[in-house]
């Protein structure tokens, strides 16, 4: 059997079928992926480390390296956590283990999940399987590229302002940022706690729903979690009875490439053909003020969360002459890369006495405006649609010199994140031979609706998730 496994085409659902029918063992399936990784990961660098098969009867999984795994080094893509081996599992890692999903390895990420391209990883970037000269998106570019290239049937990522959805879009796969509070963050390396969510990166919407079902639910160890409605695997192929809103600002924002607009417009037209009511709507303040609001709140929370990396309890410690403060300061300067330092500095500034009201306080009020603007739309619509990313995958180095240009990669994913809303990205087609992502946003806890709409569109679009150059 092993020789016939084509990991390039295999969905997690099909893999589970092979296991259930006894056509191969979980160990053999894990070995098939290990072989694919050995063959193709030299070029793509999706994994920071791989792990041997140690049991579990299910479909193997890759985890983004911000997800704590007992006995397996977890670095969050940062030098300051090099050598850190968690002594306990995060809740999501434990749930995957409990469901019998063997670990394939830990995937690459921008340092502390701060970035949109994996170029901020201290361990070198990952490459896009559709064109290795281009980025896979970020921060969860390792997970997305691994799933796209058949180096994992599915994976988990984490999303603060677009780190699951944007790489899924750039790699032509499916990514879900779940409703805030539905998936435990216990044992996850924290970035911005009022925004961080863990979620699945998969090849199909049904796989996404299955994996969400494994990880979602209240966790006594994370007091921000809530009870989650039962997950329904989508089957419907029409969209009758679904009201779709098309926010003008999310679809016509400056910087959206014409090829991206075209593919998304095609998918929106398809919604109508499938029986949905489609209508244009507005989100003016959320889109205009979402990005500045995010880039105050996320760095402010990051500056606080990253205070724990001091070279005392775990990870890297720099050699320093002098007192304890000198150890902190040199460890942090040598251990953090440029982007975390930038965000720590912005966040510390925004929270400092004298500036707090002018920056952080204002940003929190803007957040209320964003929450209200979305809530008003969900009185009329079941889902909102837009491009996930304004552009297709860009070239290495294209945005690294200009932090603000890189931040714009998340222009369309950020507003709904600020409101704690779930968002699903599915591939909608190709522009210049590169995948375009369609973003579906719903009200809180509407994952089942997103799965239903995403599945129906996926079936109608018939997108082939295997990168053309690997077919």
């Amino acid at each position: 059997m092993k020789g016939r496994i084509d990991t390039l085409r295999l969905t997690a659902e099909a893999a589970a079928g092979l296991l259930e029918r006894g056509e191969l063992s979980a160990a053999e399936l894990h070995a098939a992926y290990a072989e694919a990784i050995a063959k193709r990961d030299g070029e793509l660098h999706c994994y920071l480390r791989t792990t041997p098969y140690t049991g579990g009867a299910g479909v193997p999984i890759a985890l983004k390296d911000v997800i704590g795994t007992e006995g397996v080094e977890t670095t969050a893509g940062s030098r300051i956590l090099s050598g850190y081996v968690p002594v306990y599992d995060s809740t999501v890692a434990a749930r995957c283990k409990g469901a019998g999903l063997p670990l394939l390895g830990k995937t690459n990420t921008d340092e502390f999940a701060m970035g949109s391209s994996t170029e901020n990883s201290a361990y070198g970037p990952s490459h896009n399987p559709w064109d290795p000269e281009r980025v896979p998106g970020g921060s969860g570019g390792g997970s997305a590229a691994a799933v796209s290239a058949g180096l994992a049937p599915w994976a988990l990522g984490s999303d603060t302002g677009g780190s699951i959805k944007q790489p899924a879009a750039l790699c032509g796969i499916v990514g879900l940022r779940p409703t805030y509070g539905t998936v435990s963050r216990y044992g996850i390396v924290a970035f911005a706690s009022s925004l961080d969510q863990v979620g699945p990166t998969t090849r199909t919407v049904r796989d996404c729903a299955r994996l969400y079902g494994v990880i979602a639910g209240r966790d006594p160890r994370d007091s921000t979690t809530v009870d989650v409605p039962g997950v329904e695997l989508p089957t419907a192929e029409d969209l009758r009875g679904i009201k779709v809103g098309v926010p003008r600002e999310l679809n016509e924002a400056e910087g959206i490439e014409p090829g991206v607009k075209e593919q998304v417009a095609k998918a929106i037209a398809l919604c109508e053909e499938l029986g949905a009511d489609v209508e244009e709507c507005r989100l003016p303040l959320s889109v205009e003020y979402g990005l500045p609001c995010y880039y105050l709140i996320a760095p402010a929370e990051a500056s606080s969360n990253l205070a724990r990396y001091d070279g005392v309890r775990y990870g890297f410690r720099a050699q320093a002459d002098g007192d304890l403060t000198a150890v902190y300061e040199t460890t942090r300067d040598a251990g953090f890369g440029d982007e975390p330092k930038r965000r720590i500095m912005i966040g510390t500034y925004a929270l400092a006495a004298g500036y707090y009201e002018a920056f952080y306080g204002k940003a929190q009020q803007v957040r209320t405006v964003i929450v209200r603007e979305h809530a008003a739309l969900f009185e009329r619509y079941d889902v909102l649609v837009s491009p996930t990313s304004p552009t297709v995958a860009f070239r290495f180095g294209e945005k690294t010199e200009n932090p603000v240009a890189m931040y714009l990669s998340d222009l369309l994913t950020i507003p709904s994140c600020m409101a704690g809303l779930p968002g699903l990205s599915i591939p909608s087609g190709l522009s210049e031979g590169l995948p375009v992502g369609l973003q579906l946003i719903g009200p809180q806890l509407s994952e089942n609706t997103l799965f239903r709409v995403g599945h129906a569109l996926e079936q109608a679009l018939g997108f082939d998730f295997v990168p053309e150059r690997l077919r």
Partner: protein
Amino acid sequence: MMAITREEVLHVARLARLALTEEEVERLQGELNVILEAVGKVRELDLEGVEPTSHPLDLVNAWGDDEPQPSLPLEQALSNAPEEEAGFFRVPPA
């Protein structure tokens, strides 16, 4: 929009416990000015009377039972420490 001075960069770095190199101080001064000008846009809006949102869910006080649970054994808690001695994290004098 006021520009950030070199002294402010050094002050914030001190608060954040970052021993920035001279090159970093210069670069960050420029970058922070660009970024803060971009994010300063939030101050354009009239937000009189708008309540702040610190958390996207309407959750109030998630209580847990007050029962003792096993905690990490000392040996495990210290297993990642760069330096330890006699069951403590070891650091230079403060």
